[in-house]
Protein backbone atom coordinates (compact mmCIF):
# COMPACT_ATOMS: atom_id res chain seq x y z
CA UNK A 1 0.00 0.00 0.00
CA UNK A 2 1.29 3.42 -0.90
CA UNK A 3 2.28 5.80 1.89
CA UNK A 4 -0.33 8.33 0.87
CA UNK A 5 -3.24 5.90 0.81
CA UNK A 6 -2.07 4.44 4.11
CA UNK A 7 -2.05 7.90 5.61
CA UNK A 8 -5.64 8.62 4.64
CA UNK A 9 -6.87 5.25 5.85
CA UNK A 10 -5.11 5.63 9.20
CA UNK A 11 -5.85 9.31 9.77
CA UNK A 12 -9.20 9.07 11.63
CA UNK A 13 -8.19 6.33 14.04
CA UNK A 14 -4.79 7.91 14.72
CA UNK A 15 -6.37 11.31 15.37
CA UNK A 16 -8.73 9.69 17.86
CA UNK A 17 -5.93 7.86 19.65
CA UNK A 18 -3.57 10.81 19.73
CA UNK A 19 -6.22 13.27 20.90
CA UNK A 20 -7.74 11.08 23.58
CA UNK A 21 -4.94 8.77 24.67
CA UNK A 22 -1.55 10.35 23.90
CA UNK A 23 -2.39 13.99 24.67
CA UNK A 24 -4.16 13.18 27.95
CA UNK A 25 -0.98 11.44 29.12
CA UNK A 26 0.92 14.68 28.44
CA UNK A 27 -1.88 16.59 30.15
CA UNK A 28 -1.58 14.38 33.25
CA UNK A 29 2.12 15.08 33.41
CA UNK A 30 1.61 18.86 33.22
CA UNK A 31 -1.20 18.75 35.77
CA UNK A 32 0.96 16.77 38.16
CA UNK A 33 3.42 19.67 38.34
CA UNK A 34 0.80 22.07 39.65
CA UNK A 35 -1.11 22.33 42.87
CA UNK A 36 -4.21 24.31 43.87
CA UNK A 37 -3.72 27.94 44.91
CA UNK A 38 -3.27 28.90 48.49
CA UNK A 39 -6.42 30.54 49.68
CA UNK A 40 -5.73 34.26 50.09
CA UNK A 41 -6.70 35.40 53.54
CA UNK A 42 -8.42 38.64 54.39
CA UNK A 43 -9.26 40.42 57.60
CA UNK A 44 -12.98 40.81 58.07
CA UNK A 45 -14.69 42.85 60.73
CA UNK A 46 -17.68 41.08 62.14
CA UNK A 47 -19.96 43.33 64.14
CA UNK A 48 -22.75 42.17 66.40
CA UNK A 49 -24.63 43.99 69.16
CA UNK A 50 -21.77 43.25 71.58
CA UNK A 51 -19.11 44.97 69.56
CA UNK A 52 -16.83 44.37 66.62
CA UNK A 53 -14.26 41.59 66.21
CA UNK A 54 -11.61 41.17 63.60
CA UNK A 55 -11.36 37.71 62.08
CA UNK A 56 -9.23 36.19 59.40
CA UNK A 57 -11.20 34.49 56.68
CA UNK A 58 -10.85 33.35 53.10
CA UNK A 59 -11.08 36.04 50.49
CA UNK A 60 -13.52 34.25 48.23
CA UNK A 61 -13.48 36.85 45.48
CA UNK A 62 -9.72 37.03 45.24
CA UNK A 63 -9.54 33.24 45.26
CA UNK A 64 -12.03 33.01 42.40
CA UNK A 65 -10.13 35.63 40.44
CA UNK A 66 -6.87 33.79 41.02
CA UNK A 67 -8.43 30.52 39.83
CA UNK A 68 -9.78 32.21 36.77
CA UNK A 69 -6.45 33.72 35.89
CA UNK A 70 -4.44 30.56 36.45
CA UNK A 71 -6.84 27.63 36.40
CA UNK A 72 -4.07 25.04 36.73
CA UNK A 73 -3.02 26.35 40.12
CA UNK A 74 0.44 27.31 41.19
CA UNK A 75 3.59 25.60 39.99
CA UNK A 76 4.81 23.02 42.43
CA UNK A 77 7.43 21.06 40.50
CA UNK A 78 7.85 17.46 41.57
CA UNK A 79 6.86 18.19 45.14
CA UNK A 80 3.48 16.48 44.79
CA UNK A 81 5.26 13.26 43.88
CA UNK A 82 7.12 13.09 47.16
CA UNK A 83 4.40 14.32 49.52
CA UNK A 84 2.76 12.12 52.13
CA UNK A 85 0.07 10.84 49.77
CA UNK A 86 2.51 9.68 47.11
CA UNK A 87 6.08 8.50 47.44
CA UNK A 88 6.41 10.00 50.96
CA UNK A 89 10.21 9.97 51.09
CA UNK A 90 10.32 12.18 54.15
CA UNK A 91 7.90 10.04 56.14
CA UNK A 92 9.70 6.87 55.16
CA UNK A 93 13.05 8.34 56.10
CA UNK A 94 11.77 9.53 59.43
CA UNK A 95 10.00 6.25 60.10
CA UNK A 96 13.19 4.34 59.32
CA UNK A 97 15.18 6.40 61.77
CA UNK A 98 12.63 6.36 64.57
CA UNK A 99 11.43 2.79 64.45
CA UNK A 100 13.41 0.21 66.35
CA UNK A 101 12.04 -2.97 64.85
CA UNK A 102 11.18 -4.03 61.33
CA UNK A 103 7.53 -4.53 62.22
CA UNK A 104 7.30 -1.00 63.56
CA UNK A 105 8.67 0.32 60.29
CA UNK A 106 6.39 -1.87 58.22
CA UNK A 107 3.33 -0.59 60.06
CA UNK A 108 4.39 2.96 59.13
CA UNK A 109 5.03 1.77 55.58
CA UNK A 110 1.61 0.13 55.24
CA UNK A 111 -0.16 3.20 56.53
CA UNK A 112 1.09 5.40 53.71
CA UNK A 113 -1.68 5.43 51.09
CA UNK A 114 0.57 5.00 48.08
CA UNK A 115 2.42 1.97 49.42
CA UNK A 116 -0.78 0.46 50.74
CA UNK A 117 -2.20 0.66 47.22
CA UNK A 118 1.03 -0.62 45.70
CA UNK A 119 1.06 -3.72 47.87
CA UNK A 120 -2.59 -4.47 47.18
CA UNK A 121 -2.37 -3.91 43.43
CA UNK A 122 0.74 -6.09 43.16
CA UNK A 123 -0.69 -8.86 45.35
CA UNK A 124 -3.91 -8.86 43.36
CA UNK A 125 -2.14 -8.98 40.00
CA UNK A 126 0.39 -11.59 41.04
CA UNK A 127 -2.23 -13.91 42.51
CA UNK A 128 -4.96 -13.50 39.94
CA UNK A 129 -2.93 -13.73 36.72
CA UNK A 130 -1.35 -17.19 37.28
CA UNK A 131 -4.53 -18.62 38.82
CA UNK A 132 -6.53 -17.42 35.84
CA UNK A 133 -4.13 -19.12 33.45
CA UNK A 134 -4.26 -22.42 35.39
CA UNK A 135 -8.01 -22.48 35.94
CA UNK A 136 -8.75 -21.38 32.38
CA UNK A 137 -6.49 -24.14 31.06
CA UNK A 138 -8.15 -26.82 33.17
CA UNK A 139 -11.66 -25.72 32.17
CA UNK A 140 -10.62 -25.67 28.53
CA UNK A 141 -9.21 -29.22 28.76
CA UNK A 142 -12.36 -30.48 30.46
CA UNK A 143 -14.82 -28.84 28.10
CA UNK A 144 -12.77 -29.92 25.10
CA UNK A 145 -13.27 -33.53 26.16
CA UNK A 146 -17.08 -33.21 26.15
CA UNK A 147 -19.32 -34.26 23.29
CA UNK A 148 -20.10 -31.67 20.65
CA UNK A 149 -23.83 -31.47 21.45
CA UNK A 150 -23.61 -30.07 24.96
CA UNK A 151 -20.57 -27.85 24.38
CA UNK A 152 -22.59 -24.82 23.19
CA UNK A 153 -24.72 -24.21 26.29
CA UNK A 154 -21.82 -25.07 28.62
CA UNK A 155 -19.58 -22.50 26.94
CA UNK A 156 -22.35 -19.93 27.24
CA UNK A 157 -22.64 -20.44 30.99
CA UNK A 158 -18.86 -20.50 31.35
CA UNK A 159 -18.35 -17.07 29.85
CA UNK A 160 -21.11 -15.37 31.87
CA UNK A 161 -18.80 -14.07 34.64
CA UNK A 162 -16.66 -12.36 32.01
CA UNK A 163 -19.29 -10.47 30.06
CA UNK A 164 -20.89 -8.78 33.03
CA UNK A 165 -19.28 -5.51 33.98
CA UNK A 166 -17.00 -5.88 37.06
CA UNK A 167 -19.17 -3.57 39.15
CA UNK A 168 -22.26 -5.72 38.64
CA UNK A 169 -20.36 -8.99 38.90
CA UNK A 170 -18.86 -7.98 42.22
CA UNK A 171 -22.20 -6.70 43.51
CA UNK A 172 -23.90 -9.97 42.65
CA UNK A 173 -21.26 -11.87 44.62
CA UNK A 174 -21.18 -9.31 47.41
CA UNK A 175 -24.90 -9.66 48.05
CA UNK A 176 -24.38 -13.38 48.50
CA UNK A 177 -21.36 -13.34 50.78
CA UNK A 178 -22.49 -10.42 52.89
CA UNK A 179 -23.75 -11.14 56.40
CA UNK A 180 -27.33 -11.06 55.10
CA UNK A 181 -26.72 -13.17 52.01
CA UNK A 182 -26.91 -16.89 51.50
CA UNK A 183 -23.20 -17.71 51.78
CA UNK A 184 -22.41 -15.16 54.45
CA UNK A 185 -25.16 -16.28 56.82
CA UNK A 186 -24.35 -19.94 56.25
CA UNK A 187 -20.73 -19.32 57.19
CA UNK A 188 -21.85 -17.47 60.31
CA UNK A 189 -24.00 -20.44 61.28
CA UNK A 190 -21.21 -22.89 60.60
CA UNK A 191 -18.74 -21.08 62.82
CA UNK A 192 -21.46 -20.05 65.22
CA UNK A 193 -20.19 -16.47 65.22
CA UNK A 194 -22.81 -13.84 64.44
CA UNK A 195 -20.17 -11.15 63.97
CA UNK A 196 -18.07 -13.01 61.45
CA UNK A 197 -18.13 -10.98 58.28
CA UNK A 198 -15.93 -10.75 55.25
CA UNK A 199 -15.66 -7.04 55.66
CA UNK A 200 -14.29 -7.32 59.17
CA UNK A 201 -10.76 -8.37 58.38
CA UNK A 202 -8.29 -7.11 55.80
CA UNK A 203 -7.13 -10.62 54.99
CA UNK A 204 -10.64 -11.88 54.24
CA UNK A 205 -11.40 -8.85 52.10
CA UNK A 206 -8.26 -9.40 50.05
CA UNK A 207 -9.07 -13.10 49.63
CA UNK A 208 -12.59 -12.19 48.50
CA UNK A 209 -11.33 -9.67 45.97
CA UNK A 210 -8.76 -12.11 44.58
CA UNK A 211 -11.37 -14.86 44.35
CA UNK A 212 -13.63 -12.46 42.52
CA UNK A 213 -10.78 -11.59 40.14
CA UNK A 214 -10.20 -15.25 39.32
CA UNK A 215 -13.93 -15.82 38.81
CA UNK A 216 -14.20 -12.84 36.49
CA UNK A 217 -11.08 -13.42 34.36
CA UNK A 218 -10.92 -17.21 34.02
CA UNK A 219 -13.52 -17.36 31.23
CA UNK A 220 -11.29 -15.18 29.07
CA UNK A 221 -8.33 -17.54 29.55
CA UNK A 222 -10.68 -20.45 28.93
CA UNK A 223 -11.88 -19.12 25.57
CA UNK A 224 -8.38 -18.44 24.28
CA UNK A 225 -7.05 -21.80 25.45
CA UNK A 226 -10.10 -23.60 24.14
CA UNK A 227 -9.69 -22.19 20.64
CA UNK A 228 -5.97 -22.87 20.72
CA UNK A 229 -6.66 -26.49 21.72
CA UNK A 230 -8.53 -26.94 18.44
CA UNK A 231 -5.28 -26.25 16.60
CA UNK A 232 -3.14 -28.78 18.48
CA UNK A 233 -1.77 -31.19 15.88
CA UNK A 234 -3.01 -34.76 16.29
CA UNK A 235 0.04 -36.56 14.87
CA UNK A 236 2.50 -35.92 17.70
CA UNK A 237 -0.18 -36.93 20.21
CA UNK A 238 -0.77 -40.24 18.48
CA UNK A 239 2.97 -40.79 18.23
CA UNK A 240 3.22 -40.14 21.96
CA UNK A 241 0.46 -42.68 22.65
CA UNK A 242 2.25 -45.30 20.57
CA UNK A 243 5.41 -44.56 22.55
CA UNK A 244 3.46 -45.32 25.70
CA UNK A 245 2.91 -41.82 27.11
CA UNK A 246 0.01 -41.52 29.52
CA UNK A 247 -2.49 -38.70 29.39
CA UNK A 248 -0.61 -36.45 31.77
CA UNK A 249 2.67 -36.92 29.84
CA UNK A 250 0.89 -36.09 26.61
CA UNK A 251 -0.43 -32.86 28.06
CA UNK A 252 2.90 -32.00 29.65
CA UNK A 253 5.10 -32.63 26.61
CA UNK A 254 2.88 -32.02 23.59
CA UNK A 255 -0.07 -29.78 24.46
CA UNK A 256 1.56 -27.33 26.87
CA UNK A 257 4.52 -26.46 24.60
CA UNK A 258 2.04 -25.87 21.78
CA UNK A 259 -0.01 -23.51 23.95
CA UNK A 260 2.93 -21.62 25.41
CA UNK A 261 2.70 -18.53 23.13
CA UNK A 262 -1.03 -18.36 23.81
CA UNK A 263 -0.35 -18.39 27.54
CA UNK A 264 2.00 -15.42 27.12
CA UNK A 265 -0.77 -13.54 25.33
CA UNK A 266 -3.24 -14.32 28.11
CA UNK A 267 -0.71 -13.25 30.73
CA UNK A 268 -0.21 -9.92 28.94
CA UNK A 269 -3.91 -9.09 28.59
CA UNK A 270 -4.78 -10.39 32.03
CA UNK A 271 -2.03 -8.34 33.70
CA UNK A 272 -3.15 -5.20 31.88
CA UNK A 273 -6.65 -5.72 33.25
CA UNK A 274 -5.62 -6.73 36.76
CA UNK A 275 -3.37 -3.75 37.39
CA UNK A 276 -6.30 -1.44 36.83
CA UNK A 277 -8.48 -3.25 39.40
CA UNK A 278 -11.00 -0.72 40.62
CA UNK A 279 -14.68 -1.54 40.24
CA UNK A 280 -14.63 -4.65 42.49
CA UNK A 281 -13.37 -2.44 45.31
CA UNK A 282 -16.49 -0.30 44.95
CA UNK A 283 -18.73 -3.32 44.46
CA UNK A 284 -17.50 -5.09 47.59
CA UNK A 285 -17.34 -1.76 49.51
CA UNK A 286 -13.79 -2.73 50.38
CA UNK A 287 -12.28 0.76 50.36
CA UNK A 288 -11.32 0.55 54.02
CA UNK A 289 -8.98 -2.39 53.72
CA UNK A 290 -8.10 -2.66 50.05
CA UNK A 291 -7.11 0.27 47.88
CA UNK A 292 -5.65 0.13 44.41
CA UNK A 293 -3.98 2.85 42.36
CA UNK A 294 -7.12 3.33 40.31
CA UNK A 295 -9.12 3.76 43.50
CA UNK A 296 -6.68 6.42 44.78
CA UNK A 297 -7.11 8.42 41.58
CA UNK A 298 -10.88 8.02 41.73
CA UNK A 299 -10.87 9.13 45.35
CA UNK A 300 -9.06 12.35 44.44
CA UNK A 301 -11.54 13.16 41.71
CA UNK A 302 -14.91 11.90 42.88
CA UNK A 303 -15.97 15.03 44.70
CA UNK A 304 -16.80 17.57 42.06
CA UNK A 305 -16.44 20.50 44.49
CA UNK A 306 -12.88 19.73 45.53
CA UNK A 307 -11.00 17.88 42.86
CA UNK A 308 -7.33 17.30 43.56
CA UNK A 309 -6.14 17.37 39.98
CA UNK A 310 -2.48 17.59 40.93
CA UNK A 311 -2.61 14.68 43.32
CA UNK A 312 -4.66 12.50 40.95
CA UNK A 313 -2.30 13.31 38.09
CA UNK A 314 0.79 12.39 40.11
CA UNK A 315 -0.73 9.05 41.10
CA UNK A 316 -1.62 8.51 37.44
CA UNK A 317 1.94 9.11 36.29
CA UNK A 318 3.28 6.78 38.97
CA UNK A 319 0.69 4.17 37.93
CA UNK A 320 1.71 4.43 34.30
CA UNK A 321 5.36 4.00 35.29
CA UNK A 322 4.46 0.92 37.29
CA UNK A 323 2.39 -0.53 34.46
CA UNK A 324 5.40 0.06 32.22
CA UNK A 325 7.76 -1.76 34.59
CA UNK A 326 5.47 -4.75 35.02
CA UNK A 327 4.61 -5.12 31.35
CA UNK A 328 8.00 -4.46 29.76
CA UNK A 329 9.19 -8.10 29.82
CA UNK A 330 5.97 -9.38 28.26
CA UNK A 331 5.79 -6.50 25.80
CA UNK A 332 9.36 -7.05 24.63
CA UNK A 333 8.60 -10.73 24.12
CA UNK A 334 5.44 -9.95 22.12
CA UNK A 335 7.37 -7.41 20.10
CA UNK A 336 10.10 -9.91 19.17
CA UNK A 337 7.72 -12.72 18.25
CA UNK A 338 5.41 -10.40 16.39
CA UNK A 339 8.28 -8.68 14.59
CA UNK A 340 9.60 -12.04 13.39
CA UNK A 341 6.25 -13.24 12.15
CA UNK A 342 5.67 -10.19 10.00
Amino acid at each position, binding site marked *: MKHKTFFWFMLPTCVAMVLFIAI*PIVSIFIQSLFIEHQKPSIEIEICDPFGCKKEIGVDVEAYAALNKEKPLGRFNGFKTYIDRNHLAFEELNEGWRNSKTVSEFSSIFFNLPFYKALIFTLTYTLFVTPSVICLGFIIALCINALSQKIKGPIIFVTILPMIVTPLMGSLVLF*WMIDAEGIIGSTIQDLFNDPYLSLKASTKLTWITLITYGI*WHHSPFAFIVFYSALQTVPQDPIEAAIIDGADRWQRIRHVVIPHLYPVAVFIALISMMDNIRVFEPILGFSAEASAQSFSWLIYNDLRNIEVMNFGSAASTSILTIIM*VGILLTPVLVKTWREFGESR
Partner: protein
Amino acid sequence: METLADKKSKKLLVINSIFIIAWLIIAAFPFIWTFLGSFKVREDFFSRSDWWYVISGFHTIIETGGRYTLNAFREAWIEGEFWYAARNSVIVTFFVVTISLFLGTLGGYALSRSPYRYAFWILIAALVFRAMPHITLVSGYLFPFFQLNIWGILPTTIIVLVAINQPFTLWLLYSFFKTVPKELDESGMIDGCSHFQAFRYIIMPVMWPGVITAGLFSLMLAYNDFTVTAMLLSYENHTLVPKLQSYLGTNQHEGNMMWAVSSVVSATAPLFMVVMFFQKQIISGLTTGAVKG
Protein backbone atom coordinates in the same frame (compact mmCIF):
# COMPACT_ATOMS: atom_id res chain seq x y z
CA MET B 1 -13.79 -40.27 13.23
CA GLU B 2 -12.53 -41.29 16.59
CA THR B 3 -8.79 -41.01 16.85
CA LEU B 4 -6.61 -42.88 19.28
CA ALA B 5 -6.17 -39.78 21.39
CA ASP B 6 -9.92 -39.44 21.94
CA LYS B 7 -10.20 -42.66 23.93
CA LYS B 8 -10.58 -41.95 27.58
CA SER B 9 -10.84 -43.92 30.75
CA LYS B 10 -14.08 -44.00 32.72
CA LYS B 11 -12.44 -42.60 35.84
CA LEU B 12 -11.20 -39.54 34.02
CA LEU B 13 -14.61 -38.94 32.55
CA VAL B 14 -16.17 -38.89 36.01
CA ILE B 15 -13.62 -36.43 37.40
CA ASN B 16 -14.10 -34.32 34.31
CA SER B 17 -17.87 -34.17 34.69
CA ILE B 18 -17.70 -33.37 38.40
CA PHE B 19 -15.30 -30.53 37.72
CA ILE B 20 -17.42 -29.09 34.92
CA ILE B 21 -20.58 -29.24 37.01
CA ALA B 22 -18.83 -27.53 39.94
CA TRP B 23 -17.55 -24.79 37.66
CA LEU B 24 -20.94 -24.26 36.02
CA ILE B 25 -22.53 -23.82 39.44
CA ILE B 26 -19.86 -21.32 40.48
CA ALA B 27 -20.27 -19.40 37.21
CA ALA B 28 -24.06 -19.32 36.99
CA PHE B 29 -25.43 -19.58 40.52
CA PRO B 30 -24.81 -15.93 41.57
CA PHE B 31 -26.81 -14.71 38.58
CA ILE B 32 -29.67 -17.15 39.11
CA TRP B 33 -29.80 -16.22 42.78
CA THR B 34 -29.93 -12.48 42.09
CA PHE B 35 -32.56 -13.04 39.43
CA LEU B 36 -34.76 -14.93 41.88
CA GLY B 37 -34.20 -12.34 44.59
CA SER B 38 -35.12 -9.40 42.42
CA PHE B 39 -38.79 -10.44 42.51
CA LYS B 40 -38.89 -10.26 46.29
CA VAL B 41 -38.93 -7.47 48.84
CA ARG B 42 -35.80 -6.26 50.61
CA GLU B 43 -36.41 -8.24 53.82
CA ASP B 44 -36.41 -11.46 51.86
CA PHE B 45 -33.34 -10.95 49.68
CA PHE B 46 -31.28 -9.48 52.50
CA SER B 47 -32.55 -11.69 55.24
CA ARG B 48 -30.55 -12.25 58.36
CA SER B 49 -32.72 -15.01 59.73
CA ASP B 50 -33.18 -17.41 56.85
CA TRP B 51 -31.83 -17.39 53.31
CA TRP B 52 -34.67 -19.68 52.23
CA TYR B 53 -36.88 -16.57 52.24
CA VAL B 54 -35.40 -15.71 48.85
CA ILE B 55 -37.20 -18.76 47.48
CA SER B 56 -40.28 -18.87 49.69
CA GLY B 57 -40.83 -15.10 49.78
CA PHE B 58 -41.99 -14.98 53.41
CA HIS B 59 -42.03 -11.18 53.71
CA THR B 60 -43.08 -10.69 50.10
CA ILE B 61 -46.32 -12.56 50.79
CA ILE B 62 -46.97 -10.44 53.89
CA GLU B 63 -46.25 -7.15 52.16
CA THR B 64 -47.71 -7.67 48.71
CA GLY B 65 -49.90 -10.74 48.96
CA GLY B 66 -48.11 -12.68 46.25
CA ARG B 67 -44.95 -14.75 46.12
CA TYR B 68 -43.47 -12.58 43.41
CA THR B 69 -43.53 -8.85 43.07
CA LEU B 70 -42.40 -6.45 40.38
CA ASN B 71 -42.21 -3.56 42.84
CA ALA B 72 -38.43 -3.29 42.78
CA PHE B 73 -38.42 -3.06 39.00
CA ARG B 74 -41.31 -0.62 38.83
CA GLU B 75 -39.79 1.72 41.41
CA ALA B 76 -36.28 1.64 39.95
CA TRP B 77 -37.42 2.22 36.38
CA ILE B 78 -39.91 4.98 37.13
CA GLU B 79 -39.01 6.63 40.45
CA GLY B 80 -35.33 5.88 40.12
CA GLU B 81 -35.41 7.15 36.50
CA PHE B 82 -33.65 4.05 35.33
CA TRP B 83 -35.47 4.36 32.00
CA TYR B 84 -33.64 7.61 31.33
CA ALA B 85 -30.29 5.99 32.07
CA ALA B 86 -31.28 3.13 29.78
CA ARG B 87 -32.02 5.63 27.03
CA ASN B 88 -28.60 7.24 27.55
CA SER B 89 -26.95 3.82 27.44
CA VAL B 90 -28.64 3.01 24.14
CA ILE B 91 -27.47 6.30 22.61
CA VAL B 92 -23.90 5.93 23.86
CA THR B 93 -23.64 2.28 22.84
CA PHE B 94 -25.08 2.86 19.37
CA PHE B 95 -22.75 5.74 18.49
CA VAL B 96 -19.66 4.17 20.05
CA VAL B 97 -20.17 0.97 18.06
CA THR B 98 -20.84 2.77 14.77
CA ILE B 99 -17.95 5.22 15.02
CA SER B 100 -15.38 2.74 16.32
CA LEU B 101 -16.22 0.29 13.56
CA PHE B 102 -15.90 2.99 10.92
CA LEU B 103 -12.49 4.13 12.19
CA GLY B 104 -11.35 0.61 13.03
CA THR B 105 -12.11 -1.04 9.68
CA LEU B 106 -10.27 1.67 7.76
CA GLY B 107 -7.26 1.49 10.08
CA GLY B 108 -7.20 -2.29 10.47
CA TYR B 109 -7.40 -2.77 6.72
CA ALA B 110 -4.56 -0.32 6.04
CA LEU B 111 -2.36 -1.92 8.71
CA SER B 112 -2.89 -5.40 7.28
CA ARG B 113 -1.93 -4.28 3.78
CA SER B 114 1.13 -2.19 4.57
CA PRO B 115 4.52 -3.90 4.29
CA TYR B 116 6.36 -1.01 5.93
CA ARG B 117 7.95 -0.86 9.35
CA TYR B 118 5.82 2.04 10.61
CA ALA B 119 2.67 -0.11 10.50
CA PHE B 120 4.35 -2.41 13.00
CA TRP B 121 5.17 0.57 15.21
CA ILE B 122 1.58 1.76 15.17
CA LEU B 123 0.43 -1.69 16.30
CA ILE B 124 2.93 -1.75 19.15
CA ALA B 125 1.87 1.77 20.19
CA ALA B 126 -1.75 0.60 20.18
CA LEU B 127 -0.77 -2.28 22.46
CA VAL B 128 0.88 0.15 24.88
CA PHE B 129 -2.21 2.38 24.79
CA ARG B 130 -4.34 -0.67 25.54
CA ALA B 131 -2.38 -1.10 28.80
CA MET B 132 -3.21 2.38 30.13
CA PRO B 133 -5.63 2.13 33.04
CA HIS B 134 -8.76 4.05 32.01
CA ILE B 135 -8.90 6.07 35.19
CA THR B 136 -5.45 7.58 34.51
CA LEU B 137 -6.74 8.81 31.16
CA VAL B 138 -9.88 10.15 32.82
CA SER B 139 -7.75 12.19 35.20
CA GLY B 140 -6.16 13.67 32.10
CA TYR B 141 -9.51 14.55 30.53
CA LEU B 142 -11.26 16.20 33.43
CA PHE B 143 -9.29 19.39 33.69
CA PRO B 144 -9.23 20.28 29.96
CA PHE B 145 -12.88 19.28 29.59
CA PHE B 146 -13.90 21.61 32.41
CA GLN B 147 -11.91 24.41 30.80
CA LEU B 148 -13.45 23.82 27.38
CA ASN B 149 -16.86 23.44 28.96
CA ILE B 150 -17.55 20.09 27.30
CA TRP B 151 -17.74 18.05 30.49
CA GLY B 152 -20.89 16.14 31.39
CA ILE B 153 -22.48 15.69 27.98
CA LEU B 154 -22.99 12.53 25.95
CA PRO B 155 -21.01 13.41 22.77
CA THR B 156 -17.75 13.91 24.69
CA THR B 157 -18.15 10.57 26.41
CA ILE B 158 -18.91 8.85 23.13
CA ILE B 159 -15.74 10.14 21.47
CA VAL B 160 -13.64 9.26 24.52
CA LEU B 161 -15.02 5.72 24.57
CA VAL B 162 -14.38 5.35 20.85
CA ALA B 163 -10.77 6.41 21.31
CA ILE B 164 -10.19 4.15 24.32
CA ASN B 165 -11.69 1.29 22.35
CA GLN B 166 -9.58 1.85 19.21
CA PRO B 167 -6.43 -0.10 20.20
CA PHE B 168 -8.39 -3.30 20.74
CA THR B 169 -10.57 -2.83 17.64
CA LEU B 170 -7.50 -2.13 15.52
CA TRP B 171 -5.75 -5.29 16.64
CA LEU B 172 -8.82 -7.40 16.18
CA LEU B 173 -9.61 -6.12 12.70
CA TYR B 174 -5.94 -6.19 11.73
CA SER B 175 -5.82 -9.93 12.56
CA PHE B 176 -9.08 -10.42 10.70
CA PHE B 177 -8.02 -8.63 7.51
CA LYS B 178 -4.77 -10.64 7.54
CA THR B 179 -6.92 -13.69 6.88
CA VAL B 180 -8.57 -12.05 3.85
CA PRO B 181 -6.30 -12.89 0.90
CA LYS B 182 -4.37 -9.95 -0.52
CA GLU B 183 -4.93 -11.21 -4.07
CA LEU B 184 -8.58 -10.25 -3.74
CA ASP B 185 -8.08 -6.49 -3.64
CA GLU B 186 -4.91 -6.62 -5.75
CA SER B 187 -6.88 -8.18 -8.60
CA GLY B 188 -9.37 -5.36 -8.32
CA MET B 189 -6.63 -2.78 -8.51
CA ILE B 190 -5.16 -4.42 -11.59
CA ASP B 191 -8.57 -3.93 -13.18
CA GLY B 192 -8.18 -0.20 -12.52
CA CYS B 193 -9.74 0.45 -9.11
CA SER B 194 -8.15 2.88 -6.71
CA HIS B 195 -7.37 1.54 -3.24
CA PHE B 196 -10.49 3.18 -1.85
CA GLN B 197 -12.63 1.63 -4.56
CA ALA B 198 -11.07 -1.77 -3.92
CA PHE B 199 -11.92 -1.38 -0.24
CA ARG B 200 -15.44 -0.22 -0.98
CA TYR B 201 -16.45 -2.81 -3.60
CA ILE B 202 -14.25 -5.84 -2.91
CA ILE B 203 -13.35 -5.85 0.77
CA MET B 204 -16.54 -4.43 2.28
CA PRO B 205 -18.79 -7.27 1.10
CA VAL B 206 -16.55 -9.93 2.69
CA MET B 207 -15.57 -8.18 5.90
CA TRP B 208 -18.81 -8.61 7.88
CA PRO B 209 -17.81 -11.60 10.08
CA GLY B 210 -14.84 -9.65 11.43
CA VAL B 211 -16.82 -6.46 11.77
CA ILE B 212 -19.57 -8.18 13.74
CA THR B 213 -17.04 -9.53 16.22
CA ALA B 214 -15.38 -6.15 16.62
CA GLY B 215 -18.80 -4.54 16.96
CA LEU B 216 -19.79 -6.90 19.73
CA PHE B 217 -16.70 -6.03 21.70
CA SER B 218 -17.26 -2.30 21.26
CA LEU B 219 -20.83 -2.86 22.37
CA MET B 220 -19.75 -4.66 25.52
CA LEU B 221 -17.16 -1.99 26.30
CA ALA B 222 -19.53 0.92 25.83
CA TYR B 223 -22.45 -0.72 27.59
CA ASN B 224 -20.38 -2.01 30.52
CA ASP B 225 -18.18 1.01 31.06
CA PHE B 226 -18.17 2.52 34.51
CA THR B 227 -14.97 4.52 34.93
CA VAL B 228 -15.43 6.87 31.98
CA THR B 229 -19.20 7.30 32.17
CA ALA B 230 -19.22 7.85 35.93
CA MET B 231 -16.52 10.50 35.81
CA LEU B 232 -17.27 12.29 32.55
CA LEU B 233 -21.07 12.47 32.63
CA SER B 234 -23.07 14.80 34.81
CA TYR B 235 -25.53 13.12 37.15
CA GLU B 236 -28.57 13.57 34.93
CA ASN B 237 -26.75 12.15 31.90
CA HIS B 238 -25.56 8.99 33.66
CA THR B 239 -25.80 5.69 31.81
CA LEU B 240 -26.92 2.39 33.34
CA VAL B 241 -23.83 1.38 35.30
CA PRO B 242 -23.08 4.68 37.11
CA LYS B 243 -26.82 5.07 37.73
CA LEU B 244 -26.86 1.70 39.39
CA GLN B 245 -23.94 2.67 41.57
CA SER B 246 -25.78 5.78 42.71
CA TYR B 247 -28.58 3.57 44.09
CA LEU B 248 -26.17 1.85 46.42
CA GLY B 249 -25.79 4.87 48.66
CA THR B 250 -23.10 5.02 51.25
CA ASN B 251 -24.64 2.53 53.59
CA GLN B 252 -26.39 -0.74 52.85
CA HIS B 253 -29.36 0.16 54.98
CA GLU B 254 -29.95 3.52 53.46
CA GLY B 255 -29.89 3.61 49.68
CA ASN B 256 -32.33 1.61 47.66
CA MET B 257 -30.82 -1.81 47.69
CA MET B 258 -33.72 -3.45 45.90
CA TRP B 259 -33.49 -0.82 43.16
CA ALA B 260 -29.90 -1.83 42.68
CA VAL B 261 -30.81 -5.52 42.63
CA SER B 262 -33.54 -5.07 40.05
CA SER B 263 -31.40 -2.82 37.89
CA VAL B 264 -28.56 -5.34 37.90
CA VAL B 265 -31.06 -7.85 36.55
CA SER B 266 -32.47 -5.39 33.99
CA ALA B 267 -29.02 -4.37 32.82
CA THR B 268 -27.59 -7.87 32.47
CA ALA B 269 -30.59 -9.39 30.68
CA PRO B 270 -30.00 -7.71 27.28
CA LEU B 271 -26.29 -8.46 27.52
CA PHE B 272 -26.97 -12.16 28.06
CA MET B 273 -29.33 -12.16 25.08
CA VAL B 274 -26.72 -10.62 22.81
CA VAL B 275 -24.10 -13.12 23.97
CA MET B 276 -26.47 -16.03 23.45
CA PHE B 277 -27.09 -15.01 19.85
CA PHE B 278 -23.53 -14.07 18.97
CA GLN B 279 -21.57 -16.56 21.08
CA LYS B 280 -19.66 -17.93 18.08
CA GLN B 281 -18.49 -14.50 16.91
CA ILE B 282 -17.31 -13.49 20.38
CA ILE B 283 -15.24 -16.62 20.75
CA SER B 284 -13.75 -16.36 17.28
CA GLY B 285 -12.93 -12.71 17.97
CA LEU B 286 -11.08 -13.42 21.16
CA THR B 287 -9.03 -16.09 19.47
CA THR B 288 -8.03 -14.47 16.18
CA GLY B 289 -5.75 -12.13 18.07
CA ALA B 290 -4.17 -14.88 20.10
CA VAL B 291 -3.77 -17.76 17.71
CA LYS B 292 -3.06 -16.04 14.45
CA GLY B 293 -1.63 -12.73 15.61
